[in-house]
């Protein structure tokens, strides 16, 4: 019933004493790195037994705020108070001592240990003496896990054989063994399936009942609504507002959250001039492409001269889509390039395909090699004689041309690729495919880790390619990039297509709404071709 106003305003959480000081209060936290101020006087408070959602776009400052809280960074200004008393958190050990624990997305676990062994790894002073039998250890582990999370886990199972949700239980229990006052969860439901999400929530409610304060960072707004009492929204390093969630909050709460996240001042970023020509013949066709456990069957076509954008959160299937389309990952369904089926990366490239993968340093670039070598990697035939001898001059010439065309810096074909900035590295990767004369581009997070200058240069290149008739499948979580480039956008949520937006409808908040599950498409899209 209560609808949140624009300014910061909190609604008391159920079960918390209104008069007691908040468990945690961050007051006016400011942090700058060199010239860039990442946090401007950010406030946040958490009551005992309260679950507070922390939301905001990437770069909004969430991770920096948490790093300040956990001692990895020191705030330039502002104060941290625990139970009303100011505390100093200069190092991670300080935060740990104060009872602050974080559950990260990257679960660092040793695969061939049992649950019991991994649970107590490196924890000194556990109740189990060194000489206790394995059985006693396992019994203790089982009871600790159940007590901490309310769920059961067989302590004899190997970590590798657990589901991600179960591995999370180990992390949660480890954190709880330290009897924390405050728990921070970083995107905990991204890798989980529906039933597991509910189980996690059960665990969190148990923890909440014990008076633990929880900061819950997530983009899955729809889920956040089920578990958190309010959402604190950051934007551009500042408090953008708070929105009460849950039963009392009413229907518009998530919409309000999205608005606050995005703000009203989204500029049209490098939006391509709308083209009148319709997309040409479908160069890339996906027919019921599915990756079991990640991606439900998806059918899609990308025509010549068209950029189709695909986006979604972690866990939406977006991560496996690029690999699957490029032939790097086994999948069900069919993939066709220029009308013919292809299998595997070799087949894809042979049909004019180009894959710019997300993990640039491992999969995209030959980091040790020179730019020249990198640029020719996909087109060796065109710079070699019939018997296979490389034509060095031709290679050098072509490399120089590409470097000039793409404005790669340093403009030296002999430069070692690892020395280049991310943006220049990505230009080299793109250049490789230009050299190969590719027509079908699968771009996976193409400007991740790329500076602004290179970014716009890359966009120019993409636009130019498309104008010349290439087909581009743009897989990205950068919503502005999507808005600026895509002719149409497909949004994935938990492995399924939940929306397809025409160019005019593609706005950051619309896309974010679908990607986070906050909005549902009221009308199904046209039959996928």
């Amino acid at each position: 019933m209560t609808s949140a106003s624009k300014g910061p305003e909190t609604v008391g959480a159920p079960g918390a004493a209104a008069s007691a000081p908040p468990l945690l209060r961050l007051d006016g936290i400011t942090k700058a790195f060199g010239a860039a101020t990442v946090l401007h006087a950010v406030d946040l408070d958490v009551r005992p037994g309260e679950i507070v959602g922390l939301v905001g776009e990437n770069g909004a400052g969430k991770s920096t705020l948490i790093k300040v809280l956990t001692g990895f960074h020191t705030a330039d200004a502002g104060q941290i108070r625990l139970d009303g008393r100011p505390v100093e958190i200069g190092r991670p050990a300080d935060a740990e001592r104060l009872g602050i624990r974080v559950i990260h997305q990257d679960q660092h676990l040793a695969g061939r240990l049992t649950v019991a062994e991994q649970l107590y790894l490196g924890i000194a002073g556990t109740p189990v003496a060194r000489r206790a039998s394995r059985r006693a250890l396992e019994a203790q582990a089982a009871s600790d896990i159940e007590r901490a999370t309310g769920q059961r886990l067989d302590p004899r199972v190997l970590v590798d054989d657990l589901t991600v949700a179960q591995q999370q239980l180990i992390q949660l229990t480890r954190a709880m063994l330290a009897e924390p006052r405050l728990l921070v969860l970083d995107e905990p439901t991204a890798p989980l399936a529906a039933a597991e999400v509910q189980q996690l929530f059960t665990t969190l409610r148990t923890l909440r009942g014990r008076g633990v304060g929880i900061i819950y960072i997530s983009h899955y707004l729809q889920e956040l609504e089920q578990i958190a009492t309010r959402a604190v929204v950051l934007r551009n390093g500042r408090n953008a507002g708070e929105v009460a969630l849950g039963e009392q909050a009413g229907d518009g709460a998530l919409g309000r959250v999205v608005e606050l996240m995005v703000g009203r001042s989204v500029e049209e970023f490098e939006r391509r001039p709308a083209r009148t020509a319709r997309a040409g013949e479908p160069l890339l066709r996906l027919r019921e492409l599915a990756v079991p456990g990640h991606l439900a069957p998806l059918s899609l076509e990308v025509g010549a001269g068209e950029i189709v954008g695909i986006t979604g959160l972690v866990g939406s299937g977006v991560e496996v889509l690029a690999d699957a389309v490029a032939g790097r990952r086994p999948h069900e369904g069919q993939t066709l390039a220029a009308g013919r089926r292809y299998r595997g990366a070799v087949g894809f490239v042979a049909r004019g395909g180009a894959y710019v993968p997300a993990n640039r340093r491992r999969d995209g670039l030959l980091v040790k090699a020179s730019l020249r070598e990198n640029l020719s990697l996909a087109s060796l035939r065109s710079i070699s004689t019939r018997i296979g001898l490389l034509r060095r001059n031709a290679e050098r010439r072509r490399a120089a041309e590409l470097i000039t065309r793409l404005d790669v810096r340093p403009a030296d074909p002999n430069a070692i690729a690892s020395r280049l900035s991310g943006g220049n590295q990505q230009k080299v990767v793109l250049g490789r495919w230009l050299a190969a004369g590719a027509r079908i581009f699968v771009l996976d997070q193409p400007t991740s880790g790329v500076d602004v200058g290179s970014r716009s240069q890359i966009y120019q290149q993409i636009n130019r390619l498309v104008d010349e008739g290439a087909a581009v499948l743009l897989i990205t979580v950068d919503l502005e990039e999507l808005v600026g480039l895509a002719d149409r956008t497909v949004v994935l949520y938990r492995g399924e297509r939940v929306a397809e937006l025409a160019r005019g409808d593609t706005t950051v908040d619309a896309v974010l709404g679908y990607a986070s599950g906050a909005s549902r498409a009221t009308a199904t899209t046209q039959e996928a071709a």
Partner: protein
Amino acid sequence: MSNSPVQAPVNPGAPAAPEPGRDRTSRRSSDGRAGVPRSGTVRSLDARQLVAPLALAAILFVFTLLSDQFLRADNLAAVLNQSALLALAAVAMTLVVRAGGIDLSLGVAIDLSALAAAALIADGYYAWVAIAAGLGFGALVGLVNALLIVGLRIPPFLATLSVWFVGTSVQQLLTGGGAPIYLSGPRVPEEFAFLGGSGLVAGIPVAIAAALAVALLGWALLEATRFGRALTAAGEQPRAAAIAGRRVPALTVSAYVTASLLAAIAGVLLAARTNGFVPASGQLYVLDAIGAVFIGATLSRIGRPSVPGTLVGVLIFALLANGMNLIGLSFFWQGLGRGVALLLILLAGVVLARDGGGPLRRLLASARR
């Protein structure tokens, strides 16, 4: 086992996955060095690259001082002759390491081909038949390696180790328990004896000529052909190579087969030179070949093995051995000298590399503050 490539010090505070939406003003390139040109081309010089040449220079210098015979033409010629077979094996190993693997069974390829050649000669076959058989056996070893490594995805070290195992006992079996084969002089066909060094090719002993030819071929293959370029990529970053459309499995197979074939050439020459076959004589080459390849890799700005580098490594070993011989060091101390030299050179290579050295480097870096 899931490993996230986190560099020490660990910073678990950083969320890993990208999130939707982005704030333009706080964008920065991931390494924070947007647009700043970095030094470092494949042509520039790094401290590490000087290690091998300095070692070579040091060896030349020291032994010239200690022995007046060292720098004489006939001595150096003998050195080259001695090291020819090692050079062959080392070029073969270069191929394999370049392809991202290692081959511990190269000695087996050498031995089996020597065995086949010697046995057939002893049985009175034509020289070319014996040679062909020798090469065939070598290729067979390579095929087995390829099958295990590419087909069964067994890590190269373990796969070639087991081929080494099996190959050793195959030798035993075929020789009825390890009996050597001796070829009596008159019964050896001319061609075979020629290979053994009875004659010269354009004024240089056969073995050296063969080694040079193979080295040139290997060097050309790796540096000047499409195949070599693709193989190098497949060896350094197989995923990236595959994405770029290279056929990684086929490249790997050809690397192992070719390497074994080259080793087989060494085996045939060995049989010709020693006029017979002595079991397990090929083993000696493997470890030195590996050492030479990795010494050679320090010569490259990017730590990439190469034929010229490997030859430098071979030269280092050969000159060291020769020098120690000339100053009368007992055979046993020679081995020690070789081993220590290898260790020192490799360590220097690692510590002096731009990002190498681990704790030592950090220690030095902090001292500089």
